[in-house]
């Protein structure tokens, strides 16, 4: 019996050689328990060792294996070959990002945006360690928990046409993370993050296409975070118009 196989159409790009990415087809064995990442590893080990891509955990935690699979942003370690039969499967680098080589994209822009929203707990005055932890009720945890599940895989950026058209846009994951800390009962950094969010290229750039929330592998719902941040920003603005004397949140 001949072994069942599947074809992968993989994007290749060699910096300095290619002016544009091109496609190369590989035939790999088909296994019901294989994910796209397994197929790529097979190619790299057995067929072409020059194929470049990122991965690490193999279990949907590290967020480094994101690629376009048949045009949809996916964690390749969670995309089973069996869901794409009979193939071929198109594997491309994450959309909207500059390509460094083959399936590897540049992260700098996203990293810079993450830093900009200060995704850590900010206190006006830190209390001394001897005073113990900052306590939180289960309800206070629930308020932001969903938005803290992000693994920085950037699938949402690849799904966002606004980011594709306007690279300066702060983007789904960064805003969701800012929102997550703004919602945290232990945090006092709202005023420091607000200027970043309320820039024109912050929340206002978003047109609520909503695809970021569809592709997110962790159920973060960045689109909700962005719209709620707009509502909060607009309410703030309205209050400051009606009552300029009142101190804002």
């Amino acid at each position, binding site marked *: 019996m001949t072994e069942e196989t599947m074809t992968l159409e993989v994007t290749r790009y060699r910096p300095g050689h290619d002016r544009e990415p091109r496609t190369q087809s590989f035939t790999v064995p088909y296994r019901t328990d294989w994910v796209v990442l397994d197929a790529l590893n097979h190619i790299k080990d057995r067929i072409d060792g020059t194929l470049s891509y990122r991965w690490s955990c193999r279990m949907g935690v590290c967020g480094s294996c994101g690629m376009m699979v048949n045009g949809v942003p996916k964690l390749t370690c969670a995309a089973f070959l069996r869901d794409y039969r009979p193939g071929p499967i198109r594997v491309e680098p994450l959309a909207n990002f500059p390509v460094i080589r083959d399936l590897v994209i540049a992260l700098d822009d996203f990293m810079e945006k993450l830093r900009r929203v200060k995704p850590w707990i900010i206190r006006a005055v830190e209390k001394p360690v001897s005073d113990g932890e900052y306590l939180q009720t289960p309800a206070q945890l629930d308020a932001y928990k969903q938005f803290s599940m992000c693994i920085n895989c950037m699938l949402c950026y690849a799904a966002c046409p606004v980011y594709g058209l306007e690279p300066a846009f702060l983007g789904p994951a960064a805003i969701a993370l800012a929102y997550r800390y703004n919602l945290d009962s232990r945090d006092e950094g709202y005023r420091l993050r607000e200027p970043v969010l*309320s820039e024109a290229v912050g929340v206002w750039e978003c*047109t609520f296409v909503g695809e970021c929330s569809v592709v997110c592998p962790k159920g973060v719902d960045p689109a909700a975070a962005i719209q709620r941040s707009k509502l909060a920003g607009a309410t703030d603005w309205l209050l400051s118009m009606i009552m300029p004397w009142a101190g804002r949140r």
Partner: protein
Amino acid sequence: MATRKTSEPFWWLLFAAGGMVAALLVPVHLLVHGLAVPLGWTSISHARMLALAGHPLVKLYLFALIALPLYHWAHRFRFILEDLGLRGLRTPIAILCYGAAVLGTVATLWVLWQI
């Protein structure tokens, strides 16, 4: 940038209010004034329509019904144009769209004033 930064919440609030008005009220009005009355499924006499529209509270209602969704249009249309790749013309597009909505608001006031 500075002006965009401060004016976005303002236009967004008008957009949101207009979207809500449009979602709640427009389908019924469209059905009645755009289809039912012209097609003769029902009729609203000139006298009754005039008496209705002449009432100050109804005028206020009509003003909100017509003017607010214009801002909803302006906001969305502006971003449609930008999303279709006209990013180089962002400022003129914004001025044209919101400007048209403001004109429409003035026209609404004028028409209602005449009734």
